């Protein structure tokens, strides 16, 4: 029982990590109807910015947020203007492949610039709470709070604002949206800015909890794709459900099944794509 409760507490924070990472991905997938492989590398960039600002230069932690967001948005806009926008009329696999090229470039670039040694960022919040035998490390608190705040912000943005409505319209039918007079290039840029800000904030929040190296994007992007595929195309609500499903499966699998749980993400992707390609709550 003790183990079960402990796993349950861990599963919640793991789920929020996955959700934080996947929120930007699901927006991008919805608007561009392709998979953006370099999403994990932007996360890596944000964690490295945090490492330098907070860990190396001893600046206040909160300064990492604007710096990481600015650098991620900059890279995102370069990708949009340099690769995705010129390829807008091509087969939808072309930008996906190009984003894989960006993944390779960014990963190797980070490896050459900053080395492959795992780096640690000192924790921002120290200590832990003992909830009757179940230990909850306080350093995970910012992730949980930040994750919930971002989730609420994104749901509010997508469901309640005019810009969010426009983005949902573009997700459903880009041509009909153009005919309604929507400025597609502008909306694409807005999508990139929001997605990049989300992933940058996720990176800054998670930097103190994980070890930072150029390859952290690799495992996260697979988790992100799993969450997005389970949730369905471009659905924020679906991504939330998918994140919790994967987080709980991962944590409990790790506790009770050991290394076999490594393949949960892949098996889930295969099963969902084979049985229900539109996602668990999605419509086709």
């Amino acid at each position, binding site marked *: 029982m003790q183990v079960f409760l402990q796993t349950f507490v861990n599963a919640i924070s793991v789920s929020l990590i996955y959700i934080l990472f996947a929120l930007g991905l699901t927006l991008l997938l919805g608007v561009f*109807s*392709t*998979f953006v492989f370099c999403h994990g590398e932007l996360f890596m960039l944000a964690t490295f910015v945090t490492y330098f600002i907070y860990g190396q230069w001893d600046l206040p932690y909160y300064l990492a947020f604007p710096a990481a967001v600015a650098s991620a948005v900059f890279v995102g806009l370069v990708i949009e203007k*340099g*690769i995705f926008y*010129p*390829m807008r009329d*091509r*087969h*939808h*696999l*072309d930008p*996906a*492949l*190009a984003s*894989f*090229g*960006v*993944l*390779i*470039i960014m*990963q*190797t*670039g980070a*490896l*050459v610039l900053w080395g492959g040694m795992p780096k640690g960022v000192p924790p921002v919040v120290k200590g832990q709470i003992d909830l009757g035998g179940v230990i909850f490390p306080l350093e995970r608190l910012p992730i949980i709070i930040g994750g919930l705040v971002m989730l609420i912000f994104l749901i509010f943005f997508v469901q309640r604002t005019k810009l969010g409505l426009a983005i949902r319209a573009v997700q459903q039918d880009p041509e009909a949206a153009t005919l309604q007079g929507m400025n597609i290039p502008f909306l694409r840029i807005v999508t990139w800015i929001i997605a990049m800000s989300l992933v940058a904030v996720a990176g800054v929040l998670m930097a103190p909890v994980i070890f930072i190296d150029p390859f952290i994007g690799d495992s996260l992007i*697979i988790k992100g*794709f799993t969450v997005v*595929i389970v949730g369905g195309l471009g659905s924020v609500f679906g991504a939330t459900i998918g994140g919790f499903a994967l987080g709980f499966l991962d944590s409990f699998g790790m506790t009770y099944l050991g*290394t*076999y749980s*490594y*393949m949960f*993400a*892949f*098996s889930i*992707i*295969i099963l969902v*794509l*084979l*049985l229900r*390609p539109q996602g668990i709550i999605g419509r086709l």
Partner: protein
Amino acid sequence: MIKLLKNRQCFRVFVIILISVLPIFVKSPLYLHLLCFVFIRIMLAIGMYSMWTVGYLNAAQPAFWGIGAYTSALLMLHAGVPLFLTLPVSGIVSAFVAVILGYPGLRVKGAYFLILGIAFNELVRWIFVVFKSVFGGASGLTNIPQPDPIRILNITMDFTASFVPFYYLSLILCLITTFVYFRIHWSRLGYVWSSIRQNEDLIAATGISVFREKEICFATCCFFAGVSGAVYASFISAISPEMFTFVEGIYLFLAVLLGGIETPMGPIIGVLFITALDQLLRGFREFEPLIWGTILVLSLLFMPKGLISMPKMILKTEK
């Protein structure tokens, strides 16, 4: 002579003769090894090209390659089956797995199939790692035997002594693959495949079962991947799951993309180009992925039809 070479048929025969007598001039085992590897990779790349013509990127190609390699290696190690029998068997096993995966899998859209392929590839690799008693775990299978010597006329082909017999074996298999794909390309099947990529709904409306065509394409692609895996296993005599990562598949597709995606000639040129470049870049191991990534992005942006279209493009601009 030049007049003869201008004839396409004669030119092809000339090239094939040239490749077949190459081992007489190339004595260095390094280059023979490299050329065998080129032939094996062409068999894989041409399959990926054919999947691309129906609008899919088969990222699971290394997995099917691995399935072929493991099938052949296990048969040779435990049952003592000769390589010439395991070649078709491993091809059929790969194609069988492909048909099963494709039955539900080929109904999803292209981008999703890419992710499905990556997931399937990693799952297969994980199966190779976890079932240690059968597949040898992370260190894989070693001591995979070479085929017995063959005597043709007066020449004995000893597979253990030099790379020359493997050169001819992989060359013959590669030529068969290329021949099959060229025949398909200029047949009804090829026309249907390339039109699926352009407009799937229209093809479905003319009464062609798009799904069946895709399934045939996928099975063919994976059959040759399996055969190529069988040669590969015997050729390098030790295989491990690390060789079959999906990134390998992406690099293979980079070759296809570079060569050109219009005819089966593209992947061949692409693989040759990539291998040559790989040899040139041997001094910069650290920066190598950087260069591949840049090539991938730039070729997608500025050269979507590949190297094979370059002469045409230059000629057109000169006019």
